[in-house]
């Protein structure tokens, strides 16, 4: 129990985010396993935590957003959370940037995207992969907007893929120029046709470089691109790693 450690600095919370928790549930399983492989102690609060508020903020419900932030702060503080690890780039941005704006100095919890946790683990080089040898050099990486452009995390995902033994080929629009999957900002829910057309453009860029597999690490990008993938295989990063 972490509480009895000499230098207890608080709990680390794994926060999968609503999309992973309720829709892409296999990803949550994968990431729990990955955190265990890394050897990290973490807690989960599935019945107590609420939505981070990203969809509310994006849709213009700022009072609701603040309300969610306050609820989460209370729950997190009650459980001595000092750090949050999430695999959702939108939640990651909300915890890293937006909570401070509505909670001021009351928000002092560090947030980390799980790719940052993974990049610091020396263990990953030994992990077995779910992707055949021949495909390992035909992989491309899609930068999720919330992780790349909005949070500046471009190198870590590429380093993790490299560490896993995967050689990535870069698409025409990558890193800060990455083309959105089309799903963000509520567009997937409100304008699905538009969202799908954008996703198909993204898939087209992967095809242009002869990629057979597109890897990303945002649950929304993953679901959205997978739905529009045509002959390209779309994988969420955690799905590359064998149990």
């Amino acid at each position, binding site marked *: 129990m972490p509480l009895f450690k000499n230098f207890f600095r608080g709990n680390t919370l794994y926060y999968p*985010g*609503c*999309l992973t*928790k*309720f*829709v892409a*549930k296999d990803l949550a399983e994968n990431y729990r396993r990955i955190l265990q492989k890394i050897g990290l102690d973490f807690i989960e609060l599935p019945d107590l935590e*609420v*939505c981070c*508020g*990203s*969809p*509310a*903020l*994006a*849709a*213009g*419900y*700022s009072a*609701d957003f603040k309300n*969610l932030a306050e*609820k989460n702060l209370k729950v997190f503080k009650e459980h001595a959370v000092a750090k949050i690890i999430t695999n*959702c780039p*939108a939640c990651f941005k909300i915890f890293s940037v937006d909570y401070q704006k509505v909670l001021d100095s009351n928000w002092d919890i560090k947030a980390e995207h799980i790719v940052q946790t993974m990049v610091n683990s020396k263990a990953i080089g030994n992990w077995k992969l779910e992707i055949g040898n021949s495909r390992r050099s035909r992989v491309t990486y899609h930068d999720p*907007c*919330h992780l790349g*452009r*909005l949070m500046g995390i471009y190198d870590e995902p590429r380093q993790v893929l490299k560490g896993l033994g995967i050689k990535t080929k870069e698409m*025409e629009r990558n890193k*800060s*120029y990455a*083309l*959105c999957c*089309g*799903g*963000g*900002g*509520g*567009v*997937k*829910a*409100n*304008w699905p046709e*538009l*969202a799908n*057309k*954008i996703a198909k*453009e993204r898939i*087209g*860029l992967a095809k242009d470089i002869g990629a057979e597999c597109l890897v990303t690490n945002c649950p*929304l990008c993953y*679901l*959205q691109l997978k739905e529009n993938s045509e002959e390209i295989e779309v994988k969420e990063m955690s799905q590359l790693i064998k149990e």
Partner: protein
Amino acid sequence: MLLKDNKKSLLHVFDDYKAKREKVFARLDVEKLRDDLHQLKKESIKNIKELKKQAIVNLKNFGVNVFEVNNYEEAGEVLKKLTDGADLIVKSKSNVINNLNLKKVLAGKEIIETDTGDFLAELAGQKGEHHISPAVSLDIRTIVRAIKEKLNSEVEENPQAIVSFVREYLRQKIIQAQIGLTGANALTTEGQVVILENEGNISLVSRLPARHVVITSTKKIVPTIEDAMLIVKCSAIWGTGQAWPVYVSIIAGPSKTADIEKKLITGAQGAKEVDLILINDHQNLINTPFEEILYCISCGACLNFCPVFLIEHEKIDYKFANRIFKCTLCGSCKLNCPAKIDLGKITKVARAKFAQEGKASLTNEKMIENIRHYGNPFGKIDSGETPKELFCC
């Protein structure tokens, strides 16, 4: 709206632009340039009243007739008076003029658009929404067909032939026109109108007709000509990926000469009269969360990388609920804005305004109700079930 039935991908249309721009970026401190532009626009908007006062005094000293108006309607009325008696008017591309409903204001007169892209888009019966590349979604066949149908001329299906045709056609019109109508990229408190271009049409439109009428907005005023050159530089880099444009016009009043017995004659080889219709528009945006909109220099870079423009060929516009909710909040616009306008933030503020007015979509209302009742955007989820609608993120 463009190409409803013939939509093609714009994805690679801006590849050359991006490559050119990156070469220019490599020689510059891009972040410093962006910060400088942001600061210049911010300060100028903050002091807009004082700058305007100085600008008007100095423009008048240079012999420019200044007409200050409060809205586009009044601008239209002034323009109507100024163009009284003229039957052919040539104009250059201008976002401010686009807001005027020229066809109505100048009813009965022939108005010729002289920007190649706008001229062709208009000929093909389409309204280009891209500031810099209005014909970006026109294909060459549509252009050739439009020239044949509207101007009764056969033109080969290649860009060179089309441009030569446009050059000859427009030259005749510009020479015959009594009035040349342009916008401005910047105005200075020192009394200069600054306009940049690559085609050369603006130089001709502003100099060949006897009268040059400039219509622009007070938001374009900056203190000095050096400041105006920062706008020119950024417009070129972010607009077309060039370090500098082909032409920059600095217009300080009508043309003049004192070559004959040192007697100053106004109206030499360029325009004989210069009028400026200065619109006090957007005053209601100052000191609001929308103020940064006024920092826009209309380079169009935000659109070049916008995933929604790519598909819809329409701008995300904070004024319309049906457009603002289409933004994916991907952040490309802010990163590609030379003035560092935080359009994502503006989108969220606009959405909040529409949500408060009850103009949010049913989907969003459902999403927020779910969050309020169940703490997640999907609603009540029974164990073992997976929500079908992705109300995220």
